[in-house]
């Protein structure tokens, strides 16, 4: 069939159609959020979303504070200090598997470990702790990728000059990996901002500006979910939902643009 | 003997760089023509003009006529797919598809719409026999082609090209990735094949050209310096540049 011209035309048509369908779907989705949400970008939404944004930032901040060093150090060890032994393969497998765990399972784990076993309260702190575990594989993978792109020669070169592994790492590798690490950070931020299932059991439902990490709170995503389920949860009703959804969409687009920007800047630097 | 290829004033540019300069050459059928010359002289580029494989390269501009059986293949109305059915190609690195040996050989015919199993089976047997591979693989036609050795893979690629029943076989350094024994087998094969096909072969090895070809063309920096019977080129070249290359003064 593919050798007949009508067959070729048919396949070509289907191929283009699929792509057009894809683009249309995304535009409908984004367009829906924008069109519906733009009407609700008002003072009430602003008042309502400030505590949400602050809470979200707190979770992002603390989760990254934990996951970044942990992730970078792990990546350094995996790439520089070991050869591919069975040990490394097992560790890699463990970290890769972490990536594939559904977020609801993380939510269940957070509840049973942090709340029941350790005895923490429902709080922003607990949410940050579970999110740091969720994004850890992301940080490790991106840092590893960044380290890999450094030519082996440069590492060899530095070592041959008599520098120790440690100095090599600090002087040669890390500076060149910054863009990969930043990439991982941006992706992690995106993931944390949009997460609901993993933290909804452990963050509580308060909607005021939190005073400390021990307070309960709602992130943009968790509040959005609550409002959709129960529109009376917000003074604006379902309108807030559209507004918050729009805010989240803008954050996603901004983060994606940031990734492009970082890549561009670092390409220029070489 | 008639001209299967008549090339008139062929010029080729990659962007602004001219890779082929005014090449004119007539190639007889049922013989082996070797294209020799130092790296970058344009011999592979020239070869790829003959089956319009250079179409795949962006920024590639061609001027001049390539007459295949008296039709200009460079004209807009000529279908390059039809051309490639009659002018087959074997590449430097053996590149059998990640499929079975059988599926590799019938790939071309199947793309033309052939589905009759009996016909396909006989094509497979004939092509593999002509490529001197049948005895090696007749018991494992449906095993993966990637399980063959480098030399066998290259013969499979030749069988695959032959299955299309082309008039011409273009070979771009077909033995440079193979060990000496495999190379010898392929050279013997070429000797057999020239009874039925015209073979144009690019080679880096002058010894190979001297061994297997009837005619040799010497390229240098995009120009065709000399084209003559192989004996003449190697024993009595008319151009001093040819002589320099043959005697190893450069290259």
């Amino acid at each position: 069939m593919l050798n007949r011209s009508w067959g070729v035309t048919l396949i070509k048509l289907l191929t283009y159609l699929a792509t057009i369908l894809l683009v249309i779907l995304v535009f409908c989705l984004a367009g829906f959020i924008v069109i519906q949400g733009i009407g609700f970008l008002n003072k009430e939404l602003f008042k309502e979303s400030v505590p949400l944004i602050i809470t979200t930032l707190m979770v992002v901040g603390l989760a990254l504070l934990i996951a970044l060093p942990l992730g970078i150090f792990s990546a350094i060890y995996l790439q520089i200090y070991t050869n591919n032994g069975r040990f490394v393969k097992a560790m890699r497998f463990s970290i890769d598997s972490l990536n594939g765990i559904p977020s609801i399972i993380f939510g269940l784990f957070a509840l049973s470990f942090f709340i029941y076993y350790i005895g923490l309260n429902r709080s922003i702190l607990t949410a940050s702790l579970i999110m740091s575990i969720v994004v850890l594989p992301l940080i490790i993978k991106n840092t590893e990728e960044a380290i890999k792109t450094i030519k082996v020669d440069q590492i060899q070169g530095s070592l041959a000059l008599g520098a120790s592994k440690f100095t090599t790492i600090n002087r040669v590798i890390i500076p060149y990996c910054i863009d990969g690490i930043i990439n991982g950070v941006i992706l992690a931020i995106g993931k944390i901002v949009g997460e609901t299932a993993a933290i909804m059991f452990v963050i509580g439902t308060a909607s005021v500006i939190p005073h400390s990490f021990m307070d309960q709170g709602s992130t943009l995503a968790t509040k959005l979910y609550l409002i959709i389920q129960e529109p009376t949860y917000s003074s604006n009703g379902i309108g807030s939902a559209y507004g918050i959804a729009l805010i989240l969409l803008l954050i996603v687009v901004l983060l994606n643009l940031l990734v492009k920007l970082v890549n561009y800047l670092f390409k220029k630097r070489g | 003997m008639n001209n299967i290829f008549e090339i008139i004033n062929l010029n080729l540019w990659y962007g602004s760089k001219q890779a082929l300069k005014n090449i004119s050459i007539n190639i007889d059928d049922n013989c082996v023509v070797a294209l020799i010359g130092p790296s970058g002289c344009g011999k592979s580029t020239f070869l790829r003009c003959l089956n319009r494989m250079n179409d795949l390269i962006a920024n590639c501009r061609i001027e001049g006529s390539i007459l295949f059986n008296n039709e200009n293949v460079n004209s807009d109305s000529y279908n390059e797919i039809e051309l490639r059915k009659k002018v087959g190609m074997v590449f430097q690195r053996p590149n059998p598809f990640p499929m079975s040996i059988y599926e590799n050989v019938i790939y071309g015919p199947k793309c033309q719409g052939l589905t009759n199993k009996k016909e396909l089976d006989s094509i497979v047997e004939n092509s593999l026999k002509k490529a001197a591979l049948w005895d090696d693989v007749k018991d494992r036609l449906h095993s993966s082609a990637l399980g063959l050795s480098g030399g066998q893979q290259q013969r499979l690629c030749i069988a695959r090209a032959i299955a299309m029943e082309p008039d011409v076989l273009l070979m771009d350094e077909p033995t440079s990735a193979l060990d000496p024994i495999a190379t010898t087998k392929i050279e013997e094969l070429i000797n057999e094949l020239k009874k039925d096909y015209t073979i144009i072969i690019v080679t880096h090895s002058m010894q190979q050209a001297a061994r297997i070809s009837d005619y040799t063309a010497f390229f240098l920096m995009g120009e065709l310096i000399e084209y003559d019977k192989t004996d003449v080129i190697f024993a009595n070249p008319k151009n001093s540049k040819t002589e320099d290359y043959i005697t190893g003064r450069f290259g």
Partner: protein
Amino acid sequence: MKKQVFFETLYKLSIIFASLLLLLIIIFIFLEGFPALREYGFIKMIFNGEWQPTAKNPSFGLLYMILSTVVSTILSLLISIPIGILSSVCLVRMVNAKIKNIIMFIVEILAGIPSVIVGFFVLKTVVSFLYDHFYYMVGVSGNSMLAAIFVLALMSLPTIITVCVNSLEAVDPMYTEASLGLGANKIQTIYKVELRAARSGIFAAIVLGAGRVIGETMAVMLVSGNAINLPKNLLEPTRTLTSNIATEMSYASGLHQNALYASGIILFIMIMIINIVLLVLLNKGGVDNA
């Protein structure tokens, strides 16, 4: 020297800690789920359809929810795989680099949109549409298996596309050359040779997509309705394993809660099965892979 030893140990401890997390999670999920498994029985949980966790004699049969998860996964993949593969072919082989980059950016945006929002979108569009047009049918409220399938297809598309595009771009150009040299046209080359050469990557894309879909909670929860019985048709509401956990966790206690953890274990096992299937498929096609 001491500084180096310190940092080296620090790095080592980090990686060991990171790799133990998986174990920690498995252990704690299992610890909480075990009481229900012991009380009610693992086999019974899988094959029994009675989910009555708050009854006097509670039963924790997950059959219908497992089936719902499986069916919604398969049907949504039947949508997203063709669209994903075809789009990838188009992006890699049929449009220029500029258009490809623009569309890939759009795909990345889709990938980053939180699942709550995708669910919200489908809730307000597809679900309303279905309700408006099929309200007269008994049991139809718009929230349905169909809506769930739609939302899951949307969520798995970016994963499938990114991996397929990478796999297609990694195909050795020598295969393309060989195919064209034999007189095949571009479409034949793409579909008979290049997709074949990219086969293992495409399988990986499908498995990753399936994993994403099986574990999806929020989006599905918003649009699939809440019925526990097996729907007779796609327009009826249903409940997947994930939305079951999320919905009932807020008020579950005691053995009920343990049962929800147990269903988490089953979800885990399902995902592992898919990954093992991928490994087997990859090894089977191993000889054929360049």
